[in-house]
């Protein structure tokens, strides 16, 4: 469950303030709003990447506002994907597991399982350079899901994809949801995406300056 109460975040000269919403465990929520309305700032605050001025963020009933990003149990897919250019697809999927000191055999099993779900098995030895938009998207999603996070945050994940790939990715997101039951917060300004995926829709309509 994601519970955000009276959240106030400063981003440069702007301030996003008075944000409150709840997403029940296992639900898929879409946060909508105009460009520059502060959607990404809210997502980054939930992930622990932006300093919060005041308010509360609870994930699965636990207050996370003072926890470091890696302690929050959030899988994050940024808009530009931010793939690691020196790592193979396998290393992307294994990254968070290596940090958590999983055994080599457990990592291998988990990476194979993820690669199977996300149709990445043939690409495991490739580096991001030269992958298609949809393939990169699936690698970023697999990297975020590898350590079984309780919450998944997606920042306009489909904005750079063509219509066909976008349709494919709707199915991928639905499969992920069915298999993991992860609580998802998805940012977009695309109405079709919202109709296809969302259980709940939240709108941000003003930004405090």
């Amino acid at each position, binding site marked *: 469950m994601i519970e955000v109460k009276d959240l106030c975040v400063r981003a440069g000269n702007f301030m996003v303030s008075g944000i409150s919403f709840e997403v029940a465990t296992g639900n898929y929520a879409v946060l909508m709003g105009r460009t520059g309305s502060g959607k990404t700032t809210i997502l*980054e605050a939930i*992930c*622990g*990447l932006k300093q919060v001025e005041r308010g509360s963020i609870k994930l699965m009933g636990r207050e996370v506002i003072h926890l*470091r*990003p*890696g302690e*929050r149990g*959030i*899988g*994050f897919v*940024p808009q*530009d*994907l*931010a*793939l*690691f*250019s*020196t*790592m193979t697809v396998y290393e992307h999927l294994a*990254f*968070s597991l290596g*940090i*958590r000191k999983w055994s080599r055999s457990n990592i291998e099993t988990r990476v194979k399982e993820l690669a199977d779900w996300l149709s990445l098995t043939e690409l495991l030895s490739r*580096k*991001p*350079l030269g992958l298609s938009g949809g393939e*990169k998207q699936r690698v970023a999603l697999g*990297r*975020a899901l590898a*350590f079984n996070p309780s919450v998944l945050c997606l920042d306009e994940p489909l904005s750079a994809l063509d219509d066909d790939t976008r349709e494919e990715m709707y199915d991928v997101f639905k499969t992920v949801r069915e298999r993991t039951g992860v609580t998802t917060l998805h940012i977009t300004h695309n109405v079709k995406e919202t109709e296809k995926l969302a259980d709940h829709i939240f709108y941000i309509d003003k930004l405090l300056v």
Partner: protein
Amino acid sequence: MKVSGQRTQSKVFKVGGDTPFYATLIFLGMIFIILLLGMLLALIFSTTPGKIWQALQSENIQYSIKLSLVSCTITAILSLWVAVPIGYLMSRFQFRGKNILDAFLDIPIVLPPLVVGLGLLVMFHFPLWWDQPVMISEATAEPWTLEALLREKLNFPVTFSVPSVILAQFMVACAFAIRTMRNTFDQISPRTEEVALTLGCNRSKAFYKIVLPESLRGMLTAATLAWSRALGEFGPILIFSSATRMRTEVLPTTIFLEFSVGDSEAAVAVSLILVGAAIFVLILTRHLGNSKQMV
């Protein structure tokens, strides 16, 4: 009917040719290229492989080549150790006075080389308690200075010995390495580090696992540039280390010493070694710059 002021026949409009423009650009550019080429060809044709070989047999020149290679390599490694953290801090963090610090870090690049050498010399020989200098011993009447402290307490003399050569090279080479590393880190998106933080890394793990591997080419470029800057350094070394044969003599010092005793052939031979090294460094840095990967 003819209306006053109105043209009855439209005149064909012609745009002037581009030849004079291109000719001017090429002419001005060629002045510099011809000078550069003439200079290199004159150096190459004013000696023969036999004379270069003969010069290389000299014990002094062999020492100078050895000291140059060793000191430049140490300088490049030290520069990288300093340039990576400074370049990273300057690229990733905003703080008060950042612009002033940024300009300050460029001082060795714009300062006349002789001033760098003089500054180092004065710093190492500045009395540590200047209002009332404390003497090492009454007999020598030498005050405690940084140089005296290193020499007397650690048995590590700096001025006019090999460490001074490395330090003089380092002061200038490091500034170039810092600039290169800062540009490198500027080109790496901070997003990748942020994602690594959400995946369980702390700042240092994100740096070692993500940023350092991605900046490897930048580090090689910075080290190569530092190495080549150090190889050509002369002014600071002349002042801070002096030009002592078989002691603080590096390749530029050899050119100066050989030329000053009238042996211009040996000076040209050593110059060609430096030209060869410069061309090698140019090719290497171009290669590193051109083969950058993009996601």
